[in-house]
């Protein structure tokens, strides 16, 4: 029987399992110790695992990520936290120029098994520098994997898989998801989970349109589909889960069935992951099945504003998805 757990607790349970079962694993980040992390994810861990394995760092994102690279190539399994994903701007060199490239650049003779956890997204009134969704940057970098769990179970499982992976993985959580609750089957050991990185999940089968989302927009997409069902529209919902690599086959198969595609993410529309999803469809034969132009329901092309109504206007809401699918099906 699954228990009910909060998303942040599920992340924590994965961290605990890892710390318990693998000596090489350690955590590092700003205020992850006694403070418990800005979003409480690491709450209590320092008491059980001590300051050597739950490492509070100075406010030095470049050093946090770079240190993780160095620790990873010498045998440890660092899991580092960027307090907000926005601060990853200060760690682009170690992540993109180092972690992502070392394995290739050094002729395959080194592995960089590190995970960077970073909470992204808006809706908290924290404005432009604390609300970004930057996954598209990393999804464009060969050598990285990028996962974005939407459910409580995935919050745990994808983290376990990320740490098991010999490659650097960006694990981007959404701040508003931390407090969401859902069914959770607690793994007994990290190896219990064999969820591969890179597979999408169809969270609702349907015939009229395909909605592809990830992270919080996978959740909203599902809500939208339920509302659409009441209006007689039967939408299929795909939770991408991984934005690098992207499981194009699952999307294509769905589009061949429904003939209609809507992609949704919170990041700004232009140049977002949605464009890659769409292109994956129309560069395949699935193009022939499209009955109408594709739709994107994504973030508006502005930095995130502070004021509640403005912020809400920028972030795609359930009703935006509902409206867009209705139009799509009418088209």
């Amino acid at each position, binding site marked *: 029987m699954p228990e009910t757990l909060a998303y942040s607790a599920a992340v924590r349970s994965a961290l605990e399992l890892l710390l318990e079962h693998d000596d090489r694993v350690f955590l590092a980040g700003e*205020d992850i110790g006694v403070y418990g992390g800005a979003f409480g994810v690491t709450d209590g861990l320092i008491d059980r695992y001590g300051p050597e394995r739950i490492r509070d760092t100075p406010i030095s994102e470049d050093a946090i990520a770079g240190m993780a690279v160095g620790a990873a190539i010498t045998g440890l399994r660092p899991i580092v936290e960027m307090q907000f994903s926005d601060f990853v701007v200060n760690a682009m060199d170690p992540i993109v120029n180092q972690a992502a490239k070392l394995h290739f650049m050094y002729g395959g003779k080194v592995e960089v098994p590190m995970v960077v956890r970073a909470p992204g997204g808006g809706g908290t009134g924290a404005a432009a520098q604390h609300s970004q969704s930057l996954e598209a940057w990393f999804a464009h970098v060969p050598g990285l994997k990028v996962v974005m769990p939407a459910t409580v179970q995935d919050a745990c499982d994808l983290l376990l898989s990320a740490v098991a992976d010999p490659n650097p993985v960006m694990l981007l959580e959404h701040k508003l998801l931390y407090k969401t609750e859902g069914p959770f089957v607690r793994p007994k050991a990290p190896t219990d989970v064999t969820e591969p990185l890179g597979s999408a999940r169809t969270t609702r089968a349907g015939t009229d349109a395909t909605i592809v989302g990830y992270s919080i927009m996978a959740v909203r997409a599902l809500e939208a589909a339920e509302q659409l069902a009441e209006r007689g529209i039967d939408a299929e919902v795909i939770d991408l889960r991984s934005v690098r690599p992207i499981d194009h086959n699952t999307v294509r198969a769905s589009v061949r069935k429904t003939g209609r595609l809507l992609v949704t993410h919170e990041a700004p529309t232009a140049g977002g992951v949605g464009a890659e999803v769409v292109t994956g469809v129309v560069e395949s034969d699935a193009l022939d099945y499209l009955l109408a132009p594709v739709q994107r329901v994504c973030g508006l092309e502005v930095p995130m504003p502070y004021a509640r109504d403005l912020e809400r206007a920028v972030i795609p809401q359930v009703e935006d998805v509902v409206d867009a699918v209705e139009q799509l099906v009418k088209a």
Partner: protein
Amino acid sequence: MGRNARRDPRSLPARVLTNMWRIRRFEEALEELFSRGMLHGTMHLSIGQEATAEGACGALTDGDFITSTHRGHGHAIAHGGDPMLMMAELLMKDTGYCRGRGGSMHIADVAAGNLGANGIVAGSMTIAAGAALTQSVTDSGRVVLCFFGDGAANEGSFHEAVNLSAIWKLPVVWLCENNLYGMSMAQELSTAGGSVANRAGGYGIEGLAVDGNDVVAVHDAVKGAADKARSGNGPTIVECITYRYRGHSKSDRNLYRTQDEIDRWRDQHDPLARFEQRALDSKLLTEGDISACRAQAAADITEAVRQALLQPDATADDLLESAYA
């Protein structure tokens, strides 16, 4: 423009004291509004640190610039910002400093010399260097005062900005508000070398540490640094030791420090109480003057809130045209 443009006929000590009380009352008003659910997001209050903001900005001259931090309400007020426009911003009003787009962490008034609060730790330091470069190449005679926290001193940006300012002899004052913690991280644990001022030597510039809760000490140190910068002799790091009474932000449970420590700072080192006592002792102000300052500050903030609440709400109407100039 700037703070001295507000003509206030009272004595300097009265103005300084009133301003410090304004800062405190402003923050308290925010707490109150926050608890009533009228604000969005979080905020970083500077209660306990008023002397640093006021002492530093008070040492500047009309036309000088500041850059500010996530904990920037005090800086804005001390630099002559209008509490009503700040409050309007926080209350998501269209007439707020940033039209409701910025909120607590982004209050700016560039025209009046406040180049803006910044949500990125140390993010304003390189900006301050650039603003100082403008002063230098245009021979404006103005200086830039850059506020940053003790935690910010461990960002790479600190290093690059300070180094640049030193080799280019930029007219900037690096004002470190060392409130002993960067969020939960004790400054002494995060910062090798002991103090932030101590790092100045590595850049061949002067660094000094002062009691940040002594508004006069702060003023004097900044005045010296600003004069030096103005006359082409480059930057100084002025580290002000101070303390914040409230948590880092709204989500802080204060687990990394003791209540005792907080109480000690509040009861024994409060910058307002200390300045009042000093002004009384040296007969700069009477008990009556002090009461008047307090009352003035309280009234100002009450009025600011009242006015701000009447302002029109921020609107999404022109949002899509707002990202580009």
